[in-house]
């Protein structure tokens, strides 16, 4: 078994994050690295088919340009910061805008790259916490 420590290939069932269709796909994981995408053959939506975006769904995962930490603009330059500081900044600014201009001066645009549940939470948060119906989603274009 030890000799096989570096030999592993598995496919992970997941849902395409590129639009609202919800195609089922398999991410191919070779030795711990995501190397490809396959359409899920028995998925009720896409039935073993994908569009070109779905076929490329794995490409951003290990992309060098992908953001892994929040950035904060300091003196006009983006600098890496902690999540704590980033959340504090966003929350205090949103609160300030809400107090000065009212909740309808804020809008939220959420993403197909989030799960259904995250999108639900987001609209709930916009309506119940921020207090506006200005909420939309990139997949509704």
């Amino acid at each position: 078994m030890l000799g096989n420590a570096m030999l592993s290939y598995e496919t992970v069932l997941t849902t395409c994050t590129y639009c609202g269709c919800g195609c089922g796909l398999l991410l191919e994981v070779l030795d711990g690295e995501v190397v490809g995408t396959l359409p899920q053959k028995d998925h009720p939506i896409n039935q073993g088919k994908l569009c070109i975006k779905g076929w490329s769904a794995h490409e951003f995962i290990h992309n060098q340009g992908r953001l892994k930490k929040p950035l904060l603009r300091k003196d006009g330059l983006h600098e890496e910061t902690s999540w704590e500081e980033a959340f504090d900044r966003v929350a205090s600014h949103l609160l300030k805008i809400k107090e000065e201009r009212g909740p309808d001066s804020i809008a939220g645009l959420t993403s197909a790259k989030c799960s259904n549940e995250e999108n639900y939470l987001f609209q709930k948060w916009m309506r119940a916490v921020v207090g506006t119906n200005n909420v939309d989603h990139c997949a509704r274009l």
Partner: protein
Amino acid sequence: MEKTREKMARMLDEGFVSGILGLRLSHGHPVPYLFTDSVSLKDWVVDETNRYPITKILIQIWKKHPNKVIGVVVRGCEGRSLIELFKNHQLHPEKVKGIGIVCNQELAKRCRCDRPYPSEVEEGELAKPVEDFSDLTEIESLPEEERFKYWIGKFGECIKCYGCRNVCPACFCTTCTLEDPSLIKPGGMPPEIPIFHLHKAFHMADRCIDCGLCEEACPMGIPVRKLYRKVRKSVKDLFHYTPGEDKDLKGPLEFLGDGSYELPGVGR
């Protein structure tokens, strides 16, 4: 399939292979997986309807682990694919151990499969070969003008996902024409219809093993397999050659002249 499962367990336990590529039941769905120990084989399944490009996955694994011997569970079409991949140096016959499984008669009929079993199988009844070319005779009976109209209409529906290329076990060029910047400018428009479709049909004319994965992957329902079956039939009529049949017989289009045109590959 217990006899086959036992054989696979022995192959892993005795270190005959480092892993066996097959399908495993994951959350109730059969998906490709590399079994590296005999315990995990309890989740191994044979699924009649969900075919994945298993030999193509094997190329990807083997490119990273060229010194390992890897087993692969193959049905008829996948066995034919292995033969073509060995001949074209994409896999090495000494590094790949095929474990044959049979397809049932119903699947063979649905696939119009003329060889629904690989050369060696552990168990199970061999389905009868299906010689059904009604799809071709139907289209061949149309006048040329109508045939042309039919194909241009079908190709016109292509959304250029290139899924047919991605799943095709005969599409294994080191640099795909589609990704060659000297032929197709990156960031520009994809080639006009029907350049890609006809190019692919010619390119794999003596490699296509008629598995039909291309057609299953097409979101627009383009009957690409019909086109490739026609090309396969033409190759058979012209050169008396059927891809995936004879491991020692070289393809008439791939191996021109002194062989210096052969494709590069890790299995060389």
